């Protein structure tokens, strides 16, 4: 893609714009989710106000926190594996960054329109487990080690239902390209009626549920937050991290939540498209807003569950993945296949 918003530009300019957008987008996404859900929605659920002082209604609280983190001393445990300890947060944030590459926000607003977009997004999202293992191992802390091992087992177990949930969508759309999936939803029709297109949540509602559950586990959010379980492992693999490196974990956590919400919105809710609006130039402007609105709905569901439910135990989590989610996912693929062939 050598043009931005239909204006031809040199590759250097494009690269610069892309870098700025990506570097700005992910922390901004993390901040928006963190403020809206972690600070405000959770507080109101818990009959309190949350931060109110920094900016109107506390909107700048996370910015203030970020600045505070930058000022903190960078503490490394004496026994730690220093290089691994230093790299681990970057590895986690990197896996978040890589997901954003393929998520489209408009007809041309995508960093790289890969033909295997879905496959790529799910593959790079599981890279974070390497960072988690590195963090847990190098911290030289027993709680961190337990947390990292839990995270590794959990993330690997939940890759599979996540993938199976998406297979139904891919089968129905007939493509793994995320733009193609958005197009299939916008141009589809429900029994001949194409008023709202065919958002796959209507036909793939089982897949949507599976995707939400599995992504909740991928994000290590309650009820699957054993790797960071505050009440047992204190903070799991990030227990030894302070200051800027901790900020990386925070951005990684909420940035990944942002990415998964965007992915779910793209796969199941129709992405950036508004069915019936074919004006490309208009959609370049409206598309990001539509996608943002949809991903906030998905994120609301994720965080609603997160702040309400207790946490499962490690063995119960594995049992849920292997005995419940994966069979449901396989059955869903089977049913999707039958319908695909029959109709």
């Amino acid at each position, binding site marked *: 893609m050598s043009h931005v918003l239909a204006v031809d530009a040199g590759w250097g300019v494009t690269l610069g714009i892309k870098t700025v957008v990506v570097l700005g987008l992910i922390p901004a996404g993390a901040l928006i989710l963190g403020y809206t859900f972690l600070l405000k929605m959770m507080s109101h659920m818990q009959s309190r106000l949350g931060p109110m002082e920094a900016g109107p209604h506390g909107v700048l609280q996370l910015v203030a926190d970020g600045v505070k983190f930058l000022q903190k001393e960078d503490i490394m445990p004496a026994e730690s594996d220093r290089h691994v300890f230093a790299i681990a947060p970057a590895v986690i944030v990197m896996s978040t960054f890589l997901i954003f590459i393929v998520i489209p926000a408009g007809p041309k607003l995508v960093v790289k329109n890969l033909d295997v977009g879905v496959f790529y997004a799910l593959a790079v999202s599981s890279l974070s487990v390497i960072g988690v293992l590195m963090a847990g191992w190098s911290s030289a802390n027993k709680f961190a080690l337990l947390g990292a091992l839990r995270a590794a087992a959990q993330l690997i177990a939940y890759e599979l239902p996540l993938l199976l949930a998406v297979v139904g969508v891919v089968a129905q759309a007939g493509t793994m390209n995320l733009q193609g999936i958005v197009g299939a939803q916008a141009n589809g029709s429900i029994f001949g009626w194409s008023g709202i297109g065919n958002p796959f949540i209507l036909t793939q509602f089982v897949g949507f549920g599976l995707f939400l559950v599995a992504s909740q586990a991928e994000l290590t959010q309650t009820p699957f937050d054993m790797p960071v379980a505050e009440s047992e492992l204190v903070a799991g693999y990030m227990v030894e991290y302070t200051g800027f490196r901790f900020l990386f974990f925070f951005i990684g956590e909420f940035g990944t939540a942002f990415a998964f919400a965007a992915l779910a919105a793209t796969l199941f809710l129709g992405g950036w498209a508004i069915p019936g609006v074919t004006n490309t130039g208009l959609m370049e402007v409206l598309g990001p807003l539509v996608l943002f609105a949809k991903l906030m709905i998905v994120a609301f569901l994720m965080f609603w569950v997160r702040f309400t439910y207790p*946490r499962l135990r490690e063995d119960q989590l594995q049992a849920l993945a292997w005995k419940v989610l994966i069979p449901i996912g396989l059955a869903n693929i089977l049913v999707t296949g039958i319908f695909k062939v029959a109709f």
Partner: protein
Amino acid sequence: MSATDTPVPRLPELEVDRRAWRHLADAAVGVELDTGDMILNLGPQHPATHGTLRLVVRLDGERVLAADPVIGYMHRGYEKLTEVRSYPQITTLINRIDWLSSFANEVPFIHGAEKLMSIEAPPRAQYIRTILTELSRIATFVLFLGEMGLQVGALTPAFWGFRDREHVLNLIEAATGGRFHPNFNRIGGILDDLPWGWINETRNVMKIVIDSCDVFEDILAGNEIFEARTRSIGIIPGALGAAYGVSGSNLRASGVDWDLRRDGKPYLAYPEIDFKVWTHPDGDSWSRYWVRLQETRESALMVLQLLDQLPSGPIMAKVPRIIKVPEGEIWVETENPLGQMGYYIVSKGATGPFRVKIRSASFSNVSILPWLLRGVYVPDVITILASLYFILGDIDR
């Protein structure tokens, strides 16, 4: 000859029959390699230990092989301190034993001193004491109902627990002037009468408490994940629990129908009101939660009943200006929120006791931990600790 010159003795070469080993490897594919145990120090600064309990846990993977509670980080020497204080001064100290339900701590001690002096507090004072004891029970349990959620991972109920506790603490503050440590009991009665409007306000708050019990029943006790985490975790058999000295709701959740308010020597206004003693046959963490939930509701109903029956009259009996307790010994025990609390008071006729032995509930309740924690997983340790519900001040005194 320096140490470096000493030749290091070589270990004898191990004679290994490699063929036999290969054979072994073929036969036992499923055999797990022997991995070393890991010793994990839970506490004294760990959020699940409510303060400064330290658990030295030996782990194989995530399974607990042995757990050893180490107590004493908060020992404040109250038994010794009571020997150099006068009777009215001691209530200040013993308020701080179980700091969540401080008023209830004062009752058995004052009761013992009154008995030794052959004084009886007037009925109105007895009723107000009973109401405040039940209010501190509610304040303790309502916090537990939320806190238990926090320990198994649900954030929100904890804040609801604190919110409801706040209502009750406001009542205690309005009546006694102290939120945490009322120090309200006097030998022969109580310091002051109830303020104007307090009774109506208490009725309202009790309705709030009963409603929030329903909420907790919905959001936690009936939650599938909560049940999965707490059902059949940390089962205390009734007889074994009694043998370890476990008491209170923990024992009643094991099916032992024993409540000192009903079964002990009559004290306060309990013989004059109707209440049900809740038990549960299972003895696991969930039943401990359930029993406390029912007891919170029962306590709220008891307070409403006590308010209806509240007699009029004086709040202090006639007591001498300088309190000297006649020579004698007495054992008084009461049903406190955390379990059985008792004081053995030895008086030699002075203004202060000669010796006081404090029997606090949590100390005996955690004594079962090494037995209870064998073979469970690390997350279950937290569940069991939370469901036993101890206060560190009550363990260490």
